[in-house]
């Protein structure tokens, strides 16, 4: 059997690993730049044009640093979890259509939406274990906070993700994205707005950046990590951010599908995907910058008392309005 070069190229280069890595680092830079401008600062300026290479420089620096393993930690978990979390996020990302189809062609199936959400949950659990294994009071509190917060937002995320799935009558990302001649964000704005807020919690951004509230618990679950392991944790956070923004893009904004002006369809798919994701990141950063950090009890309360009922309501509303919405689309 001949080796399928296209498959390897897609998995490794575009839109696979290298492209995703570059995208995650670019989003990292974009996020920092937006936050800096909103705070009346310059943000990164030194490395590369407009400081665009700053995240790369940061990771290279981290990779060259000494990697300390404290004596008291559970060595297996402590070493394994940063890499595990990172690979789970990358794996999940492979199911998101970036240039019109999945990273590995034809691997999309009915239900990959559920798979991706499951992978994110497991990856979050890996991050919790990484904090738990470091046997440090700050890490311990940070890790329990990940789980506590997770209890709050995981259910609304699933419920809200079902709204677009219901409209598209499919549980596959490609099918959902392809059905959006008019983006679902316009058809069901209530779900879209709620999803953005829940996502803010999922991505641990202000007002929900409780698991690593540095003025309370120093570095949170990542306090004991250094060097390469810290690099992997930070990279998983970048990928988590990428995947969160990608979820919104796919479910509510039509993903990689948009007008093709000239040239190959795949290129335009990637361009639309990146442009829409940048928009989503801007919204997320904006919310993060105009709010203070809430307390964990306030988050759990508001999730169970407000967010979950609202999510169920919005799903009900979507189902009720579905015939009407369908007539608008067609």
């Amino acid at each position, binding site marked *: 059997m001949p080796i399928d070069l296209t498959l390897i190229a897609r998995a490794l280069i575009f839109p696979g690993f290298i492209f995703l890595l570059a995208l995650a680092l670019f989003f990292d830079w974009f996020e920092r730049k937006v936050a800096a401008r909103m705070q009346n600062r310059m943000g990164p300026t030194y490395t590369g044009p407009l400081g665009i290479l700053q995240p790369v420089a940061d990771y290279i620096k981290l990779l060259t640093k000494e990697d300390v393993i404290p004596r008291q930690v559970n060595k297996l978990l402590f070493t394994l979890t940063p890499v595990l979390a990172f690979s789970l996020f990358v794996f999940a990302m492979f199911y998101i259509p970036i240039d019109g189809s999945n990273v590995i062609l034809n691997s999309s199936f009915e239900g990959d939406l559920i798979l991706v959400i499951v992978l994110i949950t497991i990856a979050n659990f890996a991050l919790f274990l990484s904090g738990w294994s470091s046997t440090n009071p700050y890490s311990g*509190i940070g890790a329990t906070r990940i789980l506590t917060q997770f209890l709050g937002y995981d259910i609304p995320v699933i419920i809200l993700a079902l709204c677009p799935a219901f409209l598209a009558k499919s549980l596959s990302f490609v099918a959902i994205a392809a059905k959006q001649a008019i983006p679902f964000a316009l058809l069901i704005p209530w779900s879209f707005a709620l999803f953005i807020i829940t996502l803010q919690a999922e991505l641990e951004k202000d007002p929900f950046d409780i698991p690593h509230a540095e003025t309370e618990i120093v570095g949170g679950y990542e306090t004991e990590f250094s060097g390469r392991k810290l690099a992997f944790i930070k990279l998983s956070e970048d990928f988590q951010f990428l995947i969160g923004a990608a979820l919104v893009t796919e479910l509510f904004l039509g993903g990689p599908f948009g007008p093709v002006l000239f040239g190959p369809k795949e290129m335009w798919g990637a361009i639309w995907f990146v442009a829409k994701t940048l928009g989503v990141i801007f919204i997320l950063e904006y919310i993060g910058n105009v709010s203070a950090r809430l307390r964990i009890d306030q988050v759990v309360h508001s999730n169970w008392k407000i967010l979950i009922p609202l999510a169920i309501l919005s799903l009900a509303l979507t189902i009720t309005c579905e015939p009407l919405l369908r007539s608008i689309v067609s």
Partner: protein
Amino acid sequence: MAMFEEAVSILKDNLGNDVLECKTPKPRRAYILVKLGCHRDAISLLLKQYEQTGISTITGTDLGSEIELNYHMRCGGAVTIKNRVPKEKPRIKTITDLLPGAAFYEREVFDLLGVMFEGHPNLKRLLLPDNWPKGAYPLRKDWKPQDVKSGVSDSEKNSETNGGELKEATSIVNVVVGPQHPALHEPERFSFKVDGEVVVDVEPRLGYVHRGIEKAAEHLMFFQDVHLVERVCGICNAAHTTCFSQAVEDIGGIDVPPRALYLRTIVHELNRIHSHLLLLGVAGLLLGYEALFQHVWRDREPIMDLIEMITGNRLMTAFNTIGGVRRDLDPNAAGKIKKTLEEVKKRANFYKVVFKEDPTLRLRTEGVGVLSKSDALKLCVAGPVARGSGIDMDVRKDDAYAAYEEIPFNVISYKECDSWARLMVRAEEVLESIDIVIYALEHLPSGRFRVRVPRRQPEGEAVGRVEAPRGELIHYVKSDGTAYPYRVKIRSPTLANIISFPTMIRGGYVADIPAVLGSLDPCFSCTDRMVFLDTQNDRRWYWSLEEIKPKKAK
């Protein structure tokens, strides 16, 4: 003030023969020497009569064969109740049962002078390291720095510094905040007992930046000490120099020209504006609101520029001196100052609205770290912390100094008693301070800006009080007729306020720690005041002033 004179006469009438000596050298200052042990009667008399009576600090002075204890009470002015205990057996009854707020002051005197306070619930070291040798009391006159070079045995080391013992399986975790921690900008240690996310108890440990400034001050001349006390705290330096100069001027009977008083007021208020803005920004950072932090700090910069323009220095103003100020104000500067302040005022108004209305900020600060009015009075807190608990207390009004008698302004107080109220007090005080500076500029008297003062000061003692940005600051200076002070005692507002922290945080969440601590605006270098210590090797050493001075080429 009627209240003050009434208080003094009540003390004289009721204590009768127990009063050995009573001096009232100037309005709102009284020094009453009572028989040993009668200090409790005097203090309970004042407490019974006036609700707002509190203790500012306790000064211990080594008089040779006796140790003099000065209980500085605030009661319309500064009523100092004196007691003398024999140095061989320095024992005295505690007043913590009458006024729990005196706990830290008694510990401080115990720590530095070795006076035993009978009945004190927790008489432990406050400022000195736990393994400091027993029987070495740095503020006694017969103590020499060389005395502690010998080192101490392991048995004297406190287990607490080694992390404490591991408890049996409980859900209570010991979370140590400090000496190095992102929520603290200065080294201090808080040991929190945490059950899940709830704080069960906390024990603060001060002294990480103890520099022995009070001892050092005894070896410098009065005019040099002005620059030493300025270094107690970088942020409220103008408050410290004003306070110290006032105390020395009282001893020497020096009349400060009115222009100097106005100039002092201007710099003092600019100091307050930048200090409050700094804290409001830090509060944003502590609550995870970085955008607010960056914006407030940007708007603090013009104030720093103004201070530089007036005094020549951005932070360490070195503006006040005994007998006036060191530089006159450029006549053209007033216009520029007013223009800048108008700009800052617009921004400060905006921040007031932000703190008042931002829902996330309110969620984090409202009802958090509650210090009820009665607790605040009992613990004798000062400044914005007291005003946030509904106590109308401001040295600028109660015991007007510099030019405050002539300048109209409002004392801001909030009745909510929580972190939010304490932040709002500061946000509004920025606006008041801007008005004070503008008023002072418009009514600036002409004339001299300083008088020459001899190096020697007559024998005597004086209490200087000012309202520093963080609250009531008190300097007690005693002179024995030479150019060097016999005793300088500094009580910075943070020491008065930090005692209320355990009351505020108990039962709160871990996430409330920075919110509450931030609302206290703690400044630990003020609180701790030169000992170098290496706990690993038990090595201690001192640098005398001669060693710090640049060496002359031989």
